[in-house]
């Protein structure tokens, strides 16, 4: 009876008319040990199907979340940098002015300081000028050489004659 049923199912199976449930019945039948000898050749087929159902995909899939970079943030950063730049520029400029024009609040102090520093400059300047005094000796020497011109004049008169 069972065998009869299976044979009918097999025929339907080959015609592609079986439902999934009926196919399951066939699979169960052929995976058991009591398969009729004349249906033996179906056994590897169903066995193969069952074995293949077990195969699994084991490889990893690298799922990277693609970061879409938002260019708006660049402009935000740029504005921030600019603002910082303006903010820090102010104090630097004012300290530069202080440095350039001195730190004296009282004009008298400033005048005293200026006088002393100018005096220092002039004294150093004079040191240099006193050494230049030796150059006058050279002038004396050259004026003495002036007599040689007289000699040249007289010799030229002699040679003319």
């Amino acid at each position, binding site marked *: 009876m069972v065998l009869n049923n299976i044979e009918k199912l097999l025929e339907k199976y080959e015609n*592609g008319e079986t439902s999934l449930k009926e196919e399951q019945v066939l699979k169960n039948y052929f995976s058991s040990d009591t398969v009729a000898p004349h249906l033996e050749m179906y056994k590897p087929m169903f066995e193969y199907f069952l074995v293949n159902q077990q195969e699994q995909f084991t490889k990893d899939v690298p799922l990277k979340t693609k970061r879409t970079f938002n260019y708006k943030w660049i402009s935000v950063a740029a504005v921030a940098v600019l603002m910082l730049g303006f903010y820090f520029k102010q104090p630097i400029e004012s300290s530069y002015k202080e440095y350039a024009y001195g730190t004296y609040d009282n004009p008298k102090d400033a005048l005293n300081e200026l006088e002393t520093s100018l005096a220092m400059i002039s004294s150093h300047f004079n040191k240099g000028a006193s050494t230049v005094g030796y150059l006058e000796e050279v002038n004396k020497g050259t004026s003495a050489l002036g007599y040689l011109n007289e000699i040249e004049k007289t010799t030229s008169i002699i040679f003319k004659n």
Partner: protein
Amino acid sequence: MTQTEFLNIVMPFKDKVFRLAKRLLVSTEEAEDATQEVLLKLWKNKKKIQEYKNVEAFSMTMTKNFCFDKLKSKQAQNLKIVHSNYEDKQTSLQKQVELNDSVDWVAKIIEDLPEQQKMIIQLRDIEEYDYDEIAKMLDMNNTAVRVNLSRARKTIREKLTNTHNYGIK
């Protein structure tokens, strides 16, 4: 959509994708690459995933198309995909000994079938989809699926009977 949500959708059928790819491409490595590719494509289009009525069927169609592209490009290069699964992951040595030659025969017979029949056998007898789903995945009509399935089953049976008889006669 977060990664876990995506995995929850994809996990149930990733093996099916892999097996279909392997059915078409034969080599395990190629099938793994194909599966990876298909899953990555899904991941990239994850925003649209909610719009698909049936993600599983959609992925199977994608796999089919991807494998066909693969096969075509291999043919164009005049390269044949060689069956070179040096290490057999699916069956342990013990199991392999138990399985007799005839199970391998089935694999060879199925490999020789036309691609369409191969896929239908894979989807119906191994993955156990119903006819309507298969028809949708393969972009065929219902009766065409049945006809092809019937042909494939008959071919397998005939060839198996032949080899089965070699042992006796």
